[in-house]
């Protein structure tokens, strides 16, 4: 059983559900998130997305963008260009729904190992590293956005 105290509050509910779910229920929940995935609005960026925003570890052709939120926190947007990148879309939707507008401090506390808590230990090392790269780049741009506003 995962010790949820290490995670930001925003993730507790979904991790509690996942911890109590069977594999098929977990997949169903993650697919729900994947279906709710929203890309990058045109006022943030348009295709072709800049290489500097690409998650190099991820084969799903993922790009991450951030902006300062009205509440002083950070908004972020994630593009998943590979149509077969279902898991990356699910992770991106979970991150967006849990953390959009969150403070830099909260975003910094998102653990990269969240990937394995969500997708299970059977996720391949390559797939896992790709999705951990999404979290890493999100933190990187969140820091840049925060520092740019200081």
């Amino acid at each position, binding site marked *: 059983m995962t010790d949820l105290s290490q995670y930001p509050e925003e993730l507790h509910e979904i991790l509690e559900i996942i911890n109590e779910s069977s594999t098929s229920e977990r*997949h169903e929940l993650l*697919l729900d998130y994947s279906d709710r995935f929203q890309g990058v609005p045109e006022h943030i960026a348009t295709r072709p997305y800049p290489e500097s925003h690409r998650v190099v570890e991820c084969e799903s052709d993922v790009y991450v963008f951030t902006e300062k939120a009205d509440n002083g926190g950070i908004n972020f947007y994630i593009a998943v260009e590979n149509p077969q990148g279902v898991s990356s879309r699910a992770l991106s939707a979970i991150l967006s729904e849990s953390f959009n507008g969150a403070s830099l401090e909260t975003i910094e506390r998102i653990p990269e190992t969240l990937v394995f808590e969500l997708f299970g230990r059977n996720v391949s090392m390559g797939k896992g590293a*790709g999705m951990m790269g999404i979290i890493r780049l999100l933190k990187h741009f969140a820091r840049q956005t925060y520092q740019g506003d200081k």
Partner: protein
Amino acid sequence: MSTQNYARPEALVSTDWVAEHLNDPDVRIVESNEDPLLYSSGHIPGAVQIDWVSDLNDAVRRDYLSKEQFEELMSRNGISNDTFVVFYGDKNNWWATYAFWVFQLFGHTKAAVMNGGRKKWELEGRELTREVPSYPRTEYKAQARTDYKVRAFRDQVLAHVNSHGALIDVRSPGEFRGELLHMPDYPQEGSLRGGHIPGAKNIPWSKAANDDGTFKSLEELRALYEQENGFSPDQDIITYCRIGERSSHTWFVLTYLLGYNNVRNYDGSWTEWGNLVGVPIEK
């Protein structure tokens, strides 16, 4: 470009063929992917999923499933000894050819790969469903696992190196040269040394695939492996990559499309060789 003139065309079926056999009781369609959610997100109607980690590998040892575990896997998926199994999946059929290869350890020769895999099926706008099928349980009887025909172990690879046998390293050029310990965009996977097995030629697996995931034509494959790299059907060849999945793609190409009779896949691959004490390495 014809796909009908491959050496063993019975091991390859088209997306059209699969579409025409969706309800064929003698055919079982099997999806094998890297992405754990992909099958659940939609699959070919009637297809079952076989996962390379949880279904094909032993849960404790680094090895494949036992005869009894294989019988259970087949039986619970409604596959009988006479069922024609068709594999497809993501990543240009890496995991489909890997599963096909594992099936050959148990002699299930009534099997084929869908040319183009999941990518081509999707590109053609064909039907996908989230409905998970259920088939009556069978009583599959497997033969004893026979590794020696298609699988190479480290001691055999070392003997092969010492006798200047033919080796194909299907990883990326950077991995082959020892500049990377993993494929680009993939993580470090625990190899202490970079480089390649002495004598190996570097032919990345992707050179055998078209953009739509299908295999290149017989003529193109002959040009690649024979004219450009000097391999021939009479050779005893060992293929390897990082953990044996990409090299199963090349093993399939050499064995079934070009008709080579003595090709083995070294699934220990670089994650084993790059950590072994005292074995020779080239850069």
